[in-house]
C-alpha cells in the first residue's frame, strides 16, 4: 500500500530486544489492589461500594458520571478495605480517590462467567453502550473513553478505522506481544469496532521493526478482505494518531481538530482486544499488558497485570532492581511521565514501567541555545520549538501560542535532538498547564460575577416583595378602618333616627 511521508521525527534506539521475545506472563494475584476512580480523561467515576463490602470479580465498583467518563470494576473477588485517597499514578505524587480491594484468592466471577453473545447481531449503538459499561478507555496511554469515539458516526461521516499498532516508543513491546499471541482476538475486536462505526475500510499500521506482529496480523486477517495491514517505517512519533493517519492516507488532520474531521477514527490494538473481551464474553476491562523494562530491571518481561496492582509487585516479579534507577517512568522514555514511587497502582493507560539507569536517562545539565535548528528539523508538527521556548522563558505565553504552542503534541522529538539538552518539552508542558490554569481562573471569576449579580437581583426581588406586602397590608388596614368608620357612622345615624323617631 502507498504510504505518505511525514515531516520531522527522530530515530531513538529501539531497545525492544530485551522484551520482544518474552511471552506475556500472568502476574500472580497481589496482596492488595488500589483502583483509582479516575483512570481516564473526563469526570471521575462515583463509587457504589463501601468499606467492608464483599465483591465478585467483574462487579461494578464505581459508575461513570457525565458524558465523558468511564466506570471501574473489581479486577478480582475480595473485600473492599477502603474507599479513600491514595497516591496516584501521576508525576505530581498527589493522592486521588481510590478503592482498595483485598483479594480473597478465589478469583470468583459469581454465577459462572457472564453469558456469551454474538456482537454482530446487536445494534451499533448497543456495542458502544456495552463498551462504555465495560469501562474501556484508549489503552495506548491517552485513556480517552473508547465508547465516545465509537459514537462519532452520529456527528461525522466516517470511512476508515485505523488501528494503531505502531508502538513507536522505545522499550515498549506490550502491543507487539499482544498482536503476536492474540492475533485472532485482536482482529475480532477490530471488526466489532468497525461494525459499530459503520466503516468499510480498516487499516492496521505496524512499524517494520515488528515483522512477527505484522505476519501474525496478516494471518489472522486473511479471511477479511476489508482489513489491510500496512508496514510503517520505524520512526518516532509514528504512533501519534494524527501522524499515523497522515502516513496512511496522506490527509493532514486540521489544527486542533479530530481525525474524525477527515473521516478516520483511530483505536489502539490493546483497545481492540479489550473490546473483543467485553463484547464476546461480557468481561469488563480488568487487566492489561504492561512491559516492565529498562537497564535497572533484572529480568525484563511483558506481564498481564490486574488494574490496581502496585508497581512494586511488577518490579519484584521481574527479579527486582539491579541498581537504584535514575528514572522510574510510566510509559515509554519519550513521552512517559516519571512515577513518584513504586507504591502507585497500574492503571488502564499504563503500557510500560521503565527503570532507567543513569546512562540511559542521560540527565545532563542544560546549556544555552546555539540556534542550530535541530529541533525545527525534528518537530513532526512543523513548529519552531526554540522560538516557543524563548517566548515561554521570558514569560510571554501568548507569543508562544502565536508560534503554535497549542499544536504541539509534546512528543519530545525536539528535546531528544537538542545538543544543549534544553528541557523543551517541560517548557511546553508548563506553558500549556499555565494557560489552562489561567483559563480556569478566568472562568471562576466570571462565575463569581454571575453569582454576585444573581444575588443582587434576588435581594432586590425580596425587597420588592416586602414593599408590596407592606403596601397591601397598609391598604387593607386603611380599608378596614374606613369600613369601621362607615359602620360607626351608620350606627350613629341609626341611633339618631331612633332618637328622633321616639
Amino acid at each position: 500500500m502507498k504510504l505518505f511521508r511525514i515531516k520531522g521525527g527522530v530515530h531513538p534506539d529501539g531497545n525492544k530486544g530485551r522484551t520482544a521475545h518474552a511471552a506475556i506472563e500472568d502476574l500472580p494475584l497481589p496482596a492488595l489492589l488500589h483502583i483509582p476512580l479516575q483512570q481516564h480523561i473526563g469526570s471521575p467515576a462515583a463509587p457504589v461500594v463501601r468499606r467492608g463490602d464483599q465483591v465478585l470479580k467483574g462487579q461494578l465498583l464505581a459508575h461513570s458520571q457525565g458524558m465523558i467518563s468511564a466506570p471501574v470494576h473489581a479486577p478480582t473477588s475480595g473485600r473492599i478495605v477502603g474507599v479513600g485517597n491514595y497516591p496516584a499514578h501521576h508525576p505530581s505524587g498527589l493522592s486521588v480517590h481510590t478503592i482498595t480491594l483485598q483479594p480473597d484468592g478465589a478469583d470468583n466471577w459469581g454465577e459462572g462467567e457472564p453469558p456469551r453473545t454474538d456482537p454482530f447481531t446487536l445494534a451499533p449503538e448497543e456495542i458502544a453502550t456495552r463498551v462504555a459499561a465495560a469501562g474501556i478507555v484508549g489503552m495506548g496511554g491517552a485513556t480517552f473513553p473508547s465508547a465516545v469515539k465509537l459514537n462519532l458516526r452520529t456527528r461525522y461521516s466516517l470511512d476508515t478505522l485505523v488501528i494503531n499498532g505502531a508502538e513507536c516508543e522505545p522499550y515498549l513491546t506490550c502491543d507487539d506481544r499482544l498482536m503476536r499471541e492474540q492475533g485472532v482476538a485482536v482482529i475480532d475486536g477490530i471488526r466489532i469496532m468497525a461494525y459499530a462505526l459503520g466503516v468499510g475500510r480498516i487499516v492496521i499500521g505496524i512499524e517494520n521493526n515488528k515483522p512477527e506482529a505484522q505476519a501474525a496480523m496478516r494471518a489472522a486477517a486473511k479471511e477479511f478482505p476489508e482489513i489491510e495491514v500496512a508496514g510503517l517505517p520505524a520512526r518516532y512519533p509514528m504512533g501519534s494518531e494524527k501522524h499515523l493517519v497522515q502516513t496512511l492516507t496522506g490527509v493532514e488532520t486540521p489544527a486542533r481538530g479530530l481525525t474524525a474531521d477527515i473521516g478516520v477514527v483511530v483505536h489502539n490494538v490493546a483497545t481492540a482486544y479489550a473490546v473483543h473481551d467485553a463484547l464476546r464474553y461480557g468481561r469488563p476491562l480488568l487487566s492489561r499488558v504492561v512491559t516492565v523494562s529498562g537497564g535497572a530491571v533484572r529480568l525484563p518481561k511483558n506481564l498481564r497485570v490486574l488494574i490496581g496492582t502496585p508497581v512494586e509487585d511488577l518490579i519484584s516479579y521481574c527479579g527486582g532492581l539491579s541498581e537504584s534507577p535514575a528514572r522510574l517512568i510510566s510509559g515509554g522514555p519519550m513521552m512517559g511521565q516519571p512515577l513518584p514511587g513504586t507504591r502507585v497502582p497500574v492503571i488502564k493507560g499504563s503500557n510500560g514501567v521503565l527503570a532507567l539507569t543513569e546512562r540511559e536517562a542521560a540527565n545532563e545539565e542544560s546549556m544555552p541555545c546555539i540556534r542550530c535548528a535541530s529541533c525545527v528539523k525534528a518537530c513532526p508538527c512543523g513548529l519552531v520549538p526554540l522560538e516557543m521556548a524563548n517566548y515561554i522563558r521570558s514569560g510571554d505565553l501568548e507569543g508562544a501560542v502565536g508560534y503554535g504552542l497549542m499544536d504541539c503534541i509534546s512528543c519530545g522529538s525536539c528535546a531528544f535532538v537538542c545538543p544543549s539538552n534544553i528541557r523543551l518539552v517541560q517548557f511546553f508542558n508548563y506553558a500549556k498547564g499555565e494557560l489552562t490554569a489561567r483559563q480556569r481562573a478566568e472562568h471562576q471569576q466570571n462565575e463569581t460575577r454571575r453569582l454576585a449579580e444573581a444575588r443582587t437581583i434576588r435581594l432586590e426581588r425580596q425587597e420588592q416583595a416586602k414593599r408590596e406586602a407592606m403596601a397591601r397590608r397598609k391598604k387593607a388596614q386603611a380599608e378596614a378602618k374606613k369600613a369601621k368608620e362607615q359602620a360607626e357612622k351608620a350606627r350613629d345615624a341609626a341611633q339618631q333616627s331612633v332618637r328622633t323617631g321616639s
Partner: protein
Amino acid sequence: MFAALMSLMALGLALGVLLGVAARVFKVEGNPLEAEIEAMLPGSQCGQCGFPGCAPAASAVANGKAPVTLCPPGGRTLAQSLANKLGVTVDLSGVEDQAPTYAHIREGLCIGCTKCFKRCPTDAIMGAHEQIHVVFRDACTGCEKCFEVCPTECIEMRPVEATAQTWYWSKPMEASS
C-alpha cells in the same frame, strides 16, 4: 472703538455658544476607564482590597491610587490584565502571596444563625434558621466575610490544594546564561 467692541463681543458670544454645545454633546459620565475596570473586577463586593466595593476599587485603580495587584480573588490573572489595560508594567512574581482559600463550616459548632448565609456575596452558603449550614466549595471565593461574622467561630478558611487534575509541570530551572 465701537467696531472693536462689537467684534470682540460677537467673538465671545460665538465661542461661548460653541463651548456650551460642546459641553452637552461631549459630556462624560464619570471616568469611562473606571467603568471598564469595574467590569473586569470580580464584582463580588468582598472588600478584601480595603475599599468598600468593586466600584470604589476600580476608581482608585483608574486614578493610580491603588496598585493593579489589589484584588486577591482576581489573583495574578487579573493583575496581568489590569496592567495590560492601563499600560503599566507589573512585577507579578510577588503577587500571589495569598494562597487561595475556601470557607469550611464545622458542622458540630454551627447553630444555624444564618449570619454567614446572609452575608455571602456569591450565595455560596446554603442554610436556614436553626439548620446546619454548608459551603459550596466551587462557588466560594475565600473573601472571609462569613469567617468574620460567625458567632461560634465554626468557620475555618482552608487552603485550596492542587489536585491531580489541576497540577502541571513547573517552569524548568536553568543556569543563567
